């Protein structure tokens, strides 16, 4: 497959129109747009599941759904948000922005790019459709732990195939990003001049290539245990269910960084723009990202302290986990140092980016608390953990995605997003986010287990508060939909350099970015 685009091969002949344009497109901007629309649809789907969960948990007792369906909802909410919303959204950003940032005309493997995307809708149909098969969707938790996952109905098989397909899509997307970044940079765009978003994605892409096959292996072993008589995770047949957890988390922990490193990249683009200063410690940021990626392979069993592990194992994973906080702390320090004495303004993207730092750091600190093995054994599988990872994944990944969306919407649509609606979206989100998830720390510390549809009476008040917050947060996301629709339909024209302090090649092309950019590679001084 050559590193030229379909459109170039066609000599700019007008391509198909309508649905066929989107089915056959090899243009990185079209594919990026499709990734983002897909991920937003999945985000709303996963959000509806979350709100059903919170509706059930508004009061003790069973009011809204049956326990079996509740378990399906918690499982599918996790799978849909991780594999359907967050990961494809970042790949959408990568598709749109990496070629523009490095001065490439398109992604390296344009046809494979099309296939990477179009694998996702069938996977989503398999996943969501599993609700409607006998026995319903998988209810083993998003981690799909054996032996539960070996015992589920055919919804589990559909989830396994969906994960296989999404994994293939991710691997192809990652290969495309690595090859594009390494081979298609404009003259003068050395690796160390590259925008940090490209760096974080390059490193993320390596992580994806390394760990997605591990997940595929894990779910394949579940599949063969279910249908082909193997006993990988069946103790009666000589297997070990804990081995599944080791394999899953060998994928799962780097996966956490797959979902946060591109977010670091987005925030590292936005803060210098609105602080009107170069990023403090660019080199440190690159080095710290690489460091986090390497160390992420050596901490997986901190998810499994409660499974019964020798003291040496607990101490190893506890120390390693605490040490990985150092490079992450360096990043937070660098963002704050970039803002220090900058000429800061707080347009919507900057609000989201500063909100990200504030709330993500809280998630980081609760992660450190969970890293301490004796504490983790107390809070394992409680709402404390639910609070922790939502502070990292919602306040981290999702807030950074919104920051990036507001930042680059002018480049994508040619119109400036509404500042009023953007700020309303931000303030509603950050307030309701904290109302939803902050009380969960207290619930967890008080001993409320996760993944239960009913709970003891003493947890009622905080749960009611969290449910009110969740509905506020969920409805606030519709503001974003309104902003994007308004932005696509019209509004204030965006200049090529849409933000005063913005630097980089993407701001040298008109807004909206033409369908083909950088056919003649720019020269970077």
């Amino acid at each position, binding site marked *: 497959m050559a590193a030229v685009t379909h459109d170039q091969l066609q000599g700019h002949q007008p391509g198909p129109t309508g649905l066929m344009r989107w089915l056959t497109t090899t243009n990185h901007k079209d594919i990026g747009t499709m990734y983002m629309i897909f991920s937003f649809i999945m985000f709303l789907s996963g959000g509806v599941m979350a709100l059903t969960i919170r509706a059930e948990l508004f009061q003790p007792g069973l009011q809204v759904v049956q326990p079996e369906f509740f378990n399906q909802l918690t499982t599918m909410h996790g799978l849909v948000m991780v594999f359907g919303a967050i990961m494809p959204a970042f790949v959408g950003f990568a598709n749109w922005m990496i070629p523009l940032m490095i001065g490439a005309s398109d992604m390296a493997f344009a046809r494979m790019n099309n296939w990477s995307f179009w694998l996702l809708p069938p996977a989503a149909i398999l996943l969501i459709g599993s609700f409607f098969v006998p026995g319903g969707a998988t209810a083993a938790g998003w981690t799909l732990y054996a032996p539960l996952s070996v015992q589920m109905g055919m919804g589990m098989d559909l989830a396994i195939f969906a994960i296989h397909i999404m994994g293939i899509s991710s691997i192809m997307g990652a290969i495309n990003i690595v090859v594009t970044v390494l081979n298609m940079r404009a003259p003068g765009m*050395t690796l160390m001049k590259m925008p940090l978003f490209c760096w974080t994605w390059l490193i993320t892409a390596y992580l994806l290539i390394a760990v997605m096959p591990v997940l595929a292996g894990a779910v394949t072993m579940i599949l063969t245990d279910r249908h082909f008589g193997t006993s990988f995770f069946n103790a009666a047949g000589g297997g070990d269910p804990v081995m599944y957890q080791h394999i899953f988390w060998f994928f799962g922990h780097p996966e956490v960084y797959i979902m946060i490193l591109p977010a670091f990249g987005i925030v590292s683009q936005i803060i210098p723009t609105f602080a009107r200063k170069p990023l403090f410690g660019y*080199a*440190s940021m690159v080095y710290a990202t690489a460091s986090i990626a*390497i160390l992420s392979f050596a901490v997986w069993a901190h998810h499994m302290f409660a499974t019964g592990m020798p003291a*040496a194992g607990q101490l190893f994973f506890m*120390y390693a986990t605490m*040490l990985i906080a*150092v490079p992450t702390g*360096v990043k937070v320090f660098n963002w704050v140092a970039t803002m220090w004495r900058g000429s800061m303004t707080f347009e919507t993207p900057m609000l989201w980016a500063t909100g990200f730092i504030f709330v993500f750091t809280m998630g980081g600190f609760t992660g450190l608390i969970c890293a301490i093995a004796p504490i983790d054994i107390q809070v394992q599988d409680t709402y404390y953990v639910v609070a922790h990872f939502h502070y990292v994944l919602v306040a981290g990944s999702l807030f950074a995605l919104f920051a990036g969306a507001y930042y680059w919407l002018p480049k994508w649509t040619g119109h400036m997003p509404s500042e009023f609606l953007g700020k309303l979206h931000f303030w509603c989100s950050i307030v309701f986010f904290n109302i939803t998830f902050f009380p969960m720390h207290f619930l967890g510390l008080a001993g409320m287990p996760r993944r239960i549809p009913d709970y003891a009476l003493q947890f009622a008040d905080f749960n009611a508060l969290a449910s009110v917050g969740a509905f506020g947060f969920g409805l606030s996301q519709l503001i974003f939909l309104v902003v994007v629709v308004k932005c696509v339909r019209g509004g204030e024209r965006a200049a090529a350099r849409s933000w005063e302090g913005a630097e980089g090649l993407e701001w040298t092309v008109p807004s909206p970015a033409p369908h083909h950019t950088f056919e003649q590679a720019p020269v970077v001084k």
Partner: protein
Amino acid sequence: MNAHGAGNPRRAGFWPTLRAVLWSFFGVRRRQAYMEDAGSLNPLAVVVAGVLAGAVFVILIVIAVQVVLA
């Protein structure tokens, strides 16, 4: 790796590569040192040094754990 940077000599020795990798584990690097790294380090050597340093890091934690448990 970068066709456009092919003219650059990338002949940093073992110790400068390892030093850069060790700084990366801390996540901090001086601008001057980074400029030198950018011009002289061989990316393949950096990856190899990173994996080796990762292994050493793991061994060091194992030793620390053994000391604590002794």
